[in-house]
Every structure is written in C-alpha cells, then in structure tokens.
C-alpha cells in the first residue's frame, strides 16, 4: 500500500453530500449514494504526493469515530447543506470538537453543498414574482422551505473556529478563501475546493518529509535551547 503523505477529512451532518462531493471529485460523476457506514477512504495521487481523503459518516451512530478519523489530519472540510441552516449549526455544535485531535496547523475549509437547488428555486421564484405578483403567499412558503444559508454565516463560523483553535487570523488563510459553495450534482466549484486545499498543504507535506519518518520531533523543545545558546554568545 502506498503510504499517504497527508490526510484530509470530510466532516458534516448526514445527507449534506460529503460522499457525493468526494465521489464527484474522484470519479468525476454524480450518482445516488447510500448513507455512509463508518467511513470510507480514498487515496489521491496529486502531483508527486499521496493524499488520503477520509469520508466520514454523518449519522449520529458513528459520531464517536470522528475523533479518531481526525487524528493527525492536515485539513478538514466541514460540510453543510446550503438549504438547511441546521446543518451549519451542527458543524459548530457537534463536529467542531471532533477536530481536537487534528494537527495544530490543520487547515479548515467550510463547504456549503447543494447550491444547485438554490439556483433552481431562485429562478423559479423570480419568474413567479414577475409574472404572477398575486401569489406572494406561496412564494413566501417556498422561500421559507428552502431557507438559504448565506456565505457570510459560513465565514462567521470560520472565524469562530479560529478562535476555538486559538489561531491568529493573520497567520491562517482568510475566511473568504476558505468558505466555498458547491454542487456535487453539477460539479460546480468541487475541484476548486480540493485543489485549493491541496495547494495549501504542499508546504506541510514538505515540512513533514523534511522531518523524516519520526513524525514526533518536538520543535517546541528545540527552539528555546538554541535561543539560550545564542544568548550565551552575546
């Protein structure tokens, strides 16, 4: 088996489309899925790197596995359904704590999936508005049924995550860069999400490779030692 260089983990509530996103990216197709059991694993050869991508199960039953899957992750994709605000809320309430086991410099991306549904409804509603202004009530209904989650909400969550992880906003990619809206169905933006992350992970991979096979070199211990030394010299 090829040894992966880094790990990416997809997290998010059931039915938001994690498996579909990954499938779209890896197989270039959209097809019906079954709710994931436990987790699934892909190895992506990207440039000269092997990247393992873990698809987790959103079902409550498998929630406990999340921490283990996130252990040592270099990037985590938090996925929600743009048509269900609840799925975004769940990310904060239920999934964020699972990422405690990820690497300290773990990258976070927030992905709102199923954007294609919004467009359909949006166009339909717009047309209705124009042609049939009398039916405002039904418009309201459909608008309520598909309450769109704004990208701003996702960006707000991103900033909360940084606080939670005690990361300096200036030292990590900006929210604008790390919040995406996608459609696994049409393929919209899907490659972009993965490839943006891959690009950002290259320095991490290179650093890991430089550190060699023992991945537990403690840099924090090493640095101060050097500082004292130089202080002696002065």
């Amino acid at each position, binding site marked *: *088996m090829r040894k992966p260089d880094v*790990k990416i983990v997809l997290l998010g509530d059931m039915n938001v489309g994690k498996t579909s996103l990954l499938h779209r990216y890896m197989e270039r197709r959209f097809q019906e899925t079954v709710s994931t*059991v*436990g*987790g*699934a*694993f892909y190895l992506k050869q990207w440039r000269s790197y092997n990247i393992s991508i*873990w698809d987790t199960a959103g079902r409550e*039953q*498998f929630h*406990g*596995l999340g*921490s*283990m*899957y996130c*252990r*040592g992750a270099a990037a985590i994709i938090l996925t929600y359904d743009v048509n269900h605000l609840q799925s975004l809320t769940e990310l904060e309430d239920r999934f964020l704590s699972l990422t405690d*086991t990820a690497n300290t410099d773990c990258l976070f991306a927030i992905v709102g999936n199923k954007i294609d549904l919004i467009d359909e409804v949006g166009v339909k509603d717009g047309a209705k508005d124009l042609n049939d202004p009398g039916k405002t009530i039904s418009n309201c209904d459909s608008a309520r049924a598909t309450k769109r989650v704004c990208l701003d909400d996702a960006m707000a969550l991103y900033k909360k995550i940084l606080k939670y992880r005690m990361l300096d906003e200036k030292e990590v990619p900006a929210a604008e860069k790390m919040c995406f809206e996608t459609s696994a169905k049409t393929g919209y933006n899907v490659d972009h999400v993965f490839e943006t992350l891959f690009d950002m992970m290259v320095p991490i991979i290179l650093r890991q490779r430089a550190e060699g096979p023992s991945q537990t070199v403690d840099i924090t211990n090493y640095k101060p030692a050097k500082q004292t030394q130089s202080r002696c010299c002065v």
Partner: protein
Amino acid sequence: MMNIKAFRLVSAIERELLMGDKDHISIECIECCGKNLYVGTNECFIHHFLLEENMSPNGKVTFSATKQRHKYLGFKKPVNELKAASALNRLLVLCDNTIALVNMMNLEPIPSGARIKGAVTFALNENPVSGDPFCVEVCIISVKRRTIQMFMVYEDRVQIVKEVSTPEQPFAVAVDGHFLCLALTTQYIILNYNTGASQDLFPYCSEERQPIVKRIGRQEFLLAGPGGLGMFATVDGISQRAPVHWSENVIGAAICFPYVIALDDEFITVHSMLDQQQKQTLPFKEGHILQDFEGRVIVATSKGVYILVPLPLERQIQDLLASRRVEEALVLAKGARRNIPKEKFQVMYRRILQQAGFIQFAQLQFLEAKELFRSGQLDVRELISLYPFLLPTTSSFTRSHPPLHEYADLNQLTQGDQEKMTKCKRFLMSYLKEVRSTEVANGYKEDIDTALLKLYAEADHESLLDLLVTENSCLLTDSVAWLEKHKKYFALGLLYHYNGQDAAAVQLWVNIVNGEIHDSTRSDLYEYIVDFLTYCLDQELVWKYAEWVLQKSEEVGVQIFTRRPLEEHQKDIFNPDDIINCLKKYPKSIIKYLEHLVVDRRVQKEEYHTHLAILYLEKVLQQKPSANGNCAEVTETQAKLRNLLQKSDLYRVHCLIDKIQGTSLHMESAILHGKLEEHDRALHILVHELKDFSAAKDYCLWSSQSKDPPYRQRLFHMLLSVYLKPGPSDCDLVPAAVDLLNHHATEFDAAQVLQLVPDTWSVQLLAPFLTRAVRESLHTKRVTQAALGLAKAENLLYKHDKIKLKGSPVRLSDKKLCQMCQSPFCEPVFVRYPNGGVVHTHCAANRHMNPNSSSPGNRT
C-alpha cells in the same frame, strides 16, 4: 454485492471423536499450533489432536484429526482459554481464573507449579519487547478492578513485570510491543504500559455488545465498532483502512490476508481489506469461536471444529477475471504481492494484467486495455492473432497456454458486428503504430509491420504509404499478396522498391499510368515515375523507360536526364552523347538537355555549344519564316540564342555565320562578327542595317566587358567614327553621335574626339560632353594632388618615429637591472621595448610580453 469464492468450510474434527455420545460436552476454546490442535471443554478437559492436511483426488483440501490424548484438569470449571508457547513447549491454560502451564505434548502440569493467578482473560504479546526467545510476554486482565498485569512466562516460572490501572474496567485486550489495545466499559483505548500514555480510539459500550480486540499485524488492531463496523486502528490511534461492515451481532473476527473474516450467529462473512467489500458469505449456525492461528482460520460451534480453507489466490483471481471483475482481480493480485515470492509474483501478475487487458478489450475499453497490455508486457502477437489473416503465414507464433482469453478470433468476439470490428481494427492500428518503435516490438517487428500494412491497406489508410517509405519490416510475400488483393498497386510498387526490386516497382506504376491496372492513389503518378527514374541508380532501368517517359511528355520526361543528382555527373554514369543520341527524336527534349549541359553544367565542349546554337537558330528561323526586319519583339528562343552567342566562346562561329547569311537576323549576325573581332563590320550592321543605336552602344559595352579600358575606348571611338563617316545619303547619324558623346563622355578620350568632330558643331551641342570631360579631368587632378599630400604626411610620420628612436640612448651599467628578472646585465646585449623597458634577450624570449603591460602586483 458480487461474491467470490475465497474460502471453503471443511470439517476438522469429527464430532464422535471429540465427545462420543456425551451430548453435554461442549467446546469452550481452541488452540492450534502447527499440527497440534487443542480443544478445551466445559467439563475441564483438554483434548490434543494431530491435524493432517490431505489433498483429495479432485484437488480439494481435507483434514483428518487423530486424537493424541486428553487431560482432565481437576475442577468443576470450564477451560476458558488455551494458548500455546511452542518455544517453551508449554500450553497456557486459563481455567478458574488461573493460568496454568502444562507440557504441550503430554499435557502434564509442570513440576514447578508456576502459574498466574487472578486472570479474567489473557493475551500473548506477538511482538515481544524482551528479545528473549525462551520467554513469552503475557498480558492479563486481572480480577482486581481496573487492573492490567504484564508477565514474563518462562519454561517453569512466571514473573510479573508491570501492573497498570485503567480509567475504566477493561473487557478485552490485545498486545503489540509496549502497546495495549483495550476495550474499556465505554471506549477503546491504546495504552503504552511502559510510559503510561494513553490514546482514546472511539467510544464503544462493552457492556451492551461484546467488544472485539484483535491484533492483525504490526501495530495494527481490528476492533468491533458501532453499528457492526470492523474498525482498524494503529497504535498511534489512527485508522489507515476504511472500516468493514459486519452485522450488529458479530462475535469473532479473524484475518487471513487479504480477508477479514467475521462470525455472527448465522453466518461467516468475508470482507476484503483491500477494498472493504464483502466478498463471501457462508451460512454457519451457532458458531461461537472464530480464530486464526498462523494463517489457519478455525471456526467452531460448541460441538464441532471446522477449518476455513482459503482457495488459492490465483484461483480466486481467475474466478474474478472470469466474471469480468477486472478491478477487483487486480486489487487482489496486487495485495498478494507480499505473500508470494517476487519472481513468481511477477509472472503471475503480468499474466493477470494481460488477461484483464483482453477483458477490457472485448468490452471495447481500449484505453484501459492498452494500459494493461503495456504494463503486462503483452506479446503483441497475442493481440494480432485475434485478427484473422493478420499474422504473416510464416509466423511461428502460437498463443500462450492456458489461453489469455476465451476468443477464437475477432469475429467471435464481435459476433459479426461490423461497427465493433472496425473499432477493434482501428485500435490495433493505433496500438501497433505506437509500439512498433518501442522495445515491445523487439523480435516481432516483421509480425507487427506486416499486420499494420494489412490493416492500413484494408482500411484505405493514408499511413500505408508512410509505412512503406520509411524503415519497415513488412514481409514481402505476405504483403504483396495482400496489396494485390486490395488493389494497392502504387503501394505495392513502394514495397518492391523498399525490397530492392525497382524494375518491378516501375513496371507496376507504368501499368497504372497506361491504364492497364487501376489505382488512383496518385494523380501525378507519371511525374512520380519521372522523379523516381531521375534518382534511380539503375542505368538500365532508366534507359528502359526513357522512351516511355519522353513519349508521354518531352519536357517533363527529359528530366530523367537533366535533373540527375549532381554527384552522378562526376562519376560519368550517363554518357551525354548516348543521351543526345536517344533524344534525337524529341526536339524539345534535346534542346532542354543541351541547355542543361551548356547552361547549368557549363560543359565546355564545342559540339554542345554549336549544336545548341544551331538548334536555337533553326527554331528561330522556323518561327519567323517570312524573315522581316521587324525586331521589336524578340522571342524567347531568340533571346536565348543571342545570349548564347554573346556569352559562349566555344561554338563554331563560321558555321553559324554561314547559316545565318541571307536571313534577317542582323543582331545575331552582328554578334557573330563581333566574336570574330570584326567590330567594324558588326557596328556597321547595327547602325546601318538595323539602325538600332542603342543596340550599337550596348554592343560596345558587352563586347568590352572582360577587356581593359583602352579596348572599350577603342570600340566607342569606332562607333563614333561609324556615325561620323559620311554614309550613304542620310545625315540622321549626327544626333546619334552627339547623343553617344553626351551620354558616355567618360568612355572617350576628349582630345581625340575634339579632333574628330566636324568644325560645324556648336559648343552648345556638345556642352554636356565637354562639361563632363572637363570635370573628369579636374577631378583626376585633384585626386592626384590629395594622394600626393597624404603620402607626404605619412612620410613625415615615419621620419618622426625614426628620429625619436634614435633620440635617447640606453646606458647599460652594473646598476641597471633587467626589468624581468631583476638581475644585472653581463653582456652588452639587451632588448628594449618601445616604452623604454630594458630586459635580457633571453628574458624577452621567455616571455613575449611587455614587462609593464602586465600589472606587476599580479606577477611578482
């Protein structure tokens, strides 16, 4: 889920052998070590069997067990667990919370009575840390709450090495090195008993469902997870493989690479660790033990013991391929890499790749097929042989046995579907084209190229010609027959040519041009043949078809002689006289050929020049039979004639003068006279017969072209005289004379001219001539003065230098040192550089450099 037959369930111990007719006896635990099979019962007995593996005549594995002995341990308790430590010849027996050591062979307790007390369950460390081969490391879950203990067990003693307490009550344990994998009440953890560090894996309620903790390899464990998952976890607390999906009530798990086997109350299920998919389900009721022992998987109910016999991997792979499950077959084959010797694996894997390639091929998945053929290093002839008639009749190829696929040929594979057939052929074309220049083609070049030729010819593909005009290995006999069959006569000619049979090639092409056979490949085939003969080295062949090409077209045909490669002329391969002889019947050709000799090749031979001049002349005379004096327009031939007469000095002038006499070709006549240095006569003709003054002036110019200036002056004066001589009646010549003087003042000697011109001419008339003449004379004077001045100045400079050099004497004394070697001069000889430096003669010879021009700091 598609199934595969990975295992067969085979009975290991007959029920009677174990318990006879005593129905209350049930199996509690099993251990298998080599051929030794141990069974522990609920009635506190250990049974020892010897297990023989047999191969039945139909190739199936069966087992027979022979009972060795049994031993009653003396309690009213069941035997809970058995573990063999073969290096110590000991069997570890857990019964009544105590682990006792008994002799593996006679089942007698060891004399020292060493034992471990207070154990609920135990596990052996399969990756021991001590390094002592006569010691096994045992980990127990203690009867003490939340306590784990590590022991070293020797032949006749045990020693506790560590006790650790756990955050919750442990239920199951497995060990790898210093790492314990533990099922606690609410979760699984990894615990390093050496450092005490622990790592949470995932939550699991061990009180609700029986946990499974199974070491499956170095630093990796298999655990029962929520929802019937089989979870993989490493000692680092991460998962490297996706989970497998069991049923909720799984009771045991075992590994037989690359499969994970699980047992529940109704089935044995087999999942692949490579793709996590379920591969096989075997109904098995009331099973309660599933364990693997050094690769042997044993299942047991309370009454019977069975062995899961894995089918040979190759068989499994072949089964997968037979049902076209290429992807899975390849995954399985790749997974087997580490279990099979490298050489054997490579042969096997290559064959599987090839088979897989044919499966893809049959489904017209050409891209995939190609990749598989490539990586499987397929003998291309396997592929070619699928296509009827493509392999050369002489090919010694036979398909590999056993066959790589089930198809007799392409017809069977496509079931006569023409469209599919075409696609397959197109694929083969591109495939062969790609591989023919790679190492894949080594040794089979003839088969490949011949097949390719056949495909191209049949499909009327343009690459056929490319193939034949570049280096190729097409077999002649096969290809000839095929090209004839498909009426590719032009291509056939190329093939003949490639095989050195130019005569056959040309004959074939000539037949096409003559319409005897039909092939429209080239509309310019005649030109092609001419070109071919032009470069053909075979003289005989050229002569054979010379008449034919000339008859077709005199102008084009003659190219076979006129365009021959340069280096041939030097070798005199074709004798020009033979060629001229041959061309006699073809007036256009012969002119072209002579032009080629005279103009292009500049052959300096009188005959050719005269011959050509005469041919030109005849043609010109032919063209204007009514020789009128109008020479306003000059035909192309006439221009050529004049040019030849002017430029060449080789032709026989008199002969031509004879021929030209009495015709109106005055200009030509003038040129001929000029050749005889009869300039007077020539100019006379030009001035008086032709009345072409500009021609007369031109005559003066070109006739004197390669001569010295006085010669030219003489001609101009001669012309002037012709103009000034009182001619027969007309005084028109005066303007011509004036014109000549005024426009070509520099060609004349002014003084002489002034004596010649009649006194009646006004100065005005000759003003331009005079001005030019005076200016010229002045100019000459000034230039001469300037040159004189410059020469004087130069002379002065030299004088100056000379004086300077003489000016300062060089004094040599004992104190004077050589600038180069810094030692004194001993002889009165020295070298002085222009800048004044003085050195020894030998120093100067050693170093051809001015001592001061190299920076001193660098050199000393």
